[in-house]
């Protein structure tokens, strides 16, 4: 699984779930541990009350009027074991307010005494304390005051104490086990939440992949079925793409119509000027018609190209475009007897851009090569990384290195005797640059010119 990106839906959902889970489990821990502690304490209290009841029942006076406890009545071995954690003690409270602590004590107290605050309640009422015991023990103490009928003026304070350490130990052990169990549960729930988020967000992943294939030009629309929450978004997005296509097609048609509307009158004017007797007027018309032609040609080419930019999902296979253009070259330059061919053109090689733009670039370069070639023109293409490299070679005179830069400029023509607007290469440069590509002119190994076009390629879907 991929690492969770910051500021992602996945992180938000997971964080919310984990925080809620942690709070709920911590609450459960506190609540359950509290319940357990209370229950253990209640059981301890019940046992202590039973002991104090037993002690009360066993207390009587001997003939000398001294209190005594029938030892046979107290069977718990812990009474006799020193510091065992279970203790009893009887204090005498005189009618005059005098206190005589520890008149009778369990053997387990050994040489110590229980010391309680002097807050004895009414006779028979039970009273709880927490007090310090021998050896640093914390004791839970139950006390009860009572009066024996033989000595109506003397109150006896009976107390039974147990070490709280045992119950605290039990509580601590329970809390430990509980915490471990809840942590395990928390881990399971967190894993479940992770799975839930993964399943719930899977359609977004699919959408992301669909967008990637669109951006790479491997599809022209968002494809696939999406949940009800996403489907409207997908449909709207595809709608925008379709409208964009329609607007582009209309803009191109209008550019074509404008071309038709302007070029025929320009052709008429140019022909009329050429047929007229030579003079300043005919010359001016000829020049201005040529200038107007170049403007129309240049701006129409730009309008056609600029319209397609930024549209995602563009993919144009090179081989069919080249094949179509080679058919045109074969006819248009038929009289020259050239061999015009494609070499090593892989059928899956694709340009990440618009078909007409590729046609415009390749067409202009091939046309240029055919005008200058002696016997042959070849086009070859390959992919290197994310780039498409197209070489168009001719075996013509080539262009001197010093002049290569110049011919890429608008309207520069080396040979004024052949027809042409002088814009072909400039249009190719412009188009290539719009796609982030380049056009370079060089000498080819066989002599003649090599025009090398570098354009963005559609990535191989397998890579």
């Amino acid at each position, binding site marked *: 699984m991929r690492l969770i990106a910051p500021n992602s839906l996945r992180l938000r959902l997971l964080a919310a779930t984990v925080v809620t889970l942690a709070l709920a489990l911590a609450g459960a821990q506190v609540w359950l541990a509290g319940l357990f502690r209370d229950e253990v304490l209640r059981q301890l209290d019940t046992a202590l009350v039973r002991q104090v009841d037993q002690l009360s029942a066993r207390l009587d006076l001997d003939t000398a009027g001294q209190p005594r406890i029938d030892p046979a009545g107290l069977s718990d071995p812990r009474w006799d074991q020193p510091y065992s954690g279970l203790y009893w003690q009887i204090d005498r409270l005189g009618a005059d307010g005098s206190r005589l602590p520890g008149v009778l004590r369990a053997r387990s107290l050994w040489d110590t005494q229980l010391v309680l605050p002097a807050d004895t309640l009414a006779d028979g009422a039970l009273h709880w304390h927490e007090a310090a015991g021998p050896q640093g023990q914390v004791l839970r103490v139950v006390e009860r005051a009572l009066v024996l009928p033989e000595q109506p003026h003397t109150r006896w304070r009976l107390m039974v104490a147990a070490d709280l350490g045992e119950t605290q130990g039990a509580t601590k052990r329970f809390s430990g086990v509980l915490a471990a169990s809840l942590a395990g549960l928390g881990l399971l729930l967190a894993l479940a939440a992770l799975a839930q988020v993964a399943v719930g967000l899977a359609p977004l992943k699919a959408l992301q992949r669909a967008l990637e294939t669109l951006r790479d030009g491997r599809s022209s629309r968002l494809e696939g079925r999406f949940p009800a929450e996403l489907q409207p978004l997908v449909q709207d997005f595809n709608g925008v793409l379709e409208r964009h296509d329609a607007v582009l097609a209309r803009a191109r048609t209008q550019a*074509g119509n404008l*071309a038709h509307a302007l070029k025929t009158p320009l052709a008429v004017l140019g022909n009329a000027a050429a047929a007229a007797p030579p003079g300043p007027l005919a010359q001016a018309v000829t020049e201005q018609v040529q200038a107007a032609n170049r403007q129309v040609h240049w701006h129409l080419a730009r309008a056609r190209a600029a319209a397609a930019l930024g549209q995602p999902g563009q993919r144009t296979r090179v081989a069919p475009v080249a094949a*179509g253009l080679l058919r045109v070259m074969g006819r248009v330059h038929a009289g020259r007897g050239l061999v015009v061919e494609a070499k090593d053109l892989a059928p899956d090689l694709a340009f990440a851009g618009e078909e007409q733009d590729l046609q415009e670039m390749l067409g202009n370069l091939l046309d240029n090569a055919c005008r200058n070639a002696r016997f042959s023109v070849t086009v070859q293409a390959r992919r290197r990384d994310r780039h498409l490299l197209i070489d168009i070679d001719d075996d013509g005179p080539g262009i001197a290195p010093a002049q290569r830069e110049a011919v890429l400029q608008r309207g520069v023509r080396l040979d004024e005797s052949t027809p042409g607007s002088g814009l072909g290469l400039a249009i190719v440069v412009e188009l290539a640059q719009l796609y982030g590509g380049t056009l370079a002119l060089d000498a080819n190994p066989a002599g003649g010119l090599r025009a090398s076009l570098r354009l963005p390629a559609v990535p191989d879907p397998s890579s």
Partner: protein
Amino acid sequence: MRILLVEDDATLRAQLRTALVEAAYVVDEADNGRDAHFLGDTEPFDAVVLDLGLPQLDGLSVLRRWRDAGRTLPVLILTARDAWNEKVAGIDAGADDYLTKPFHMEELLARVRALIRRASGQASPVLRCGAVTLDTRSGRVTVDGQPVTLTSHEYKVLDYLMHRPGTVVSRTELTEHIYAQDHDRDSNTIEVFVGRLRKKLPGELIETVRGLGYRLVAPPCG
């Protein structure tokens, strides 16, 4: 040679017509797709200059219909539509050449000449047959290097025959290729032109094949 000129702009059509007639072509015109299709379907043209943006039926449809019907006449598309995809579409519809407006008239004439030459299997713009040469670019005819002056009709007959050396050409066929459709045709005048040509050229060059027509006989021709 007889050309079908299809162009809806009247001024440009007139200019083209003038230039083609000056170059010794016989020109029939159409200003819409339907007429163009009908003419190309029924008359024997040696080449067609075809605009694409036409009323009633667009040029590409006209061309496709001819090709679908098996008509192989050479077609030069002359259009303002200069996008390469339009050129590919034009060539794939069956055009033999594609020229975009605006154009130089000389370029158009050169391409029409080349089209006709290729259709009849001739490689060079200068046709030779024995001692006779005919330069299709300049319209000059020579015998043993000496220029010969021909009338327009004589030139048209010789031009047609020299594009088809060794082939029997009937009088009707010659008539169809040296007169436009609306011209008052009389196949007897062909005999007159052939007779005059025989006087100006070596006598044995044009042979009469009785009952069939004429044939250029002096090999090697080409």
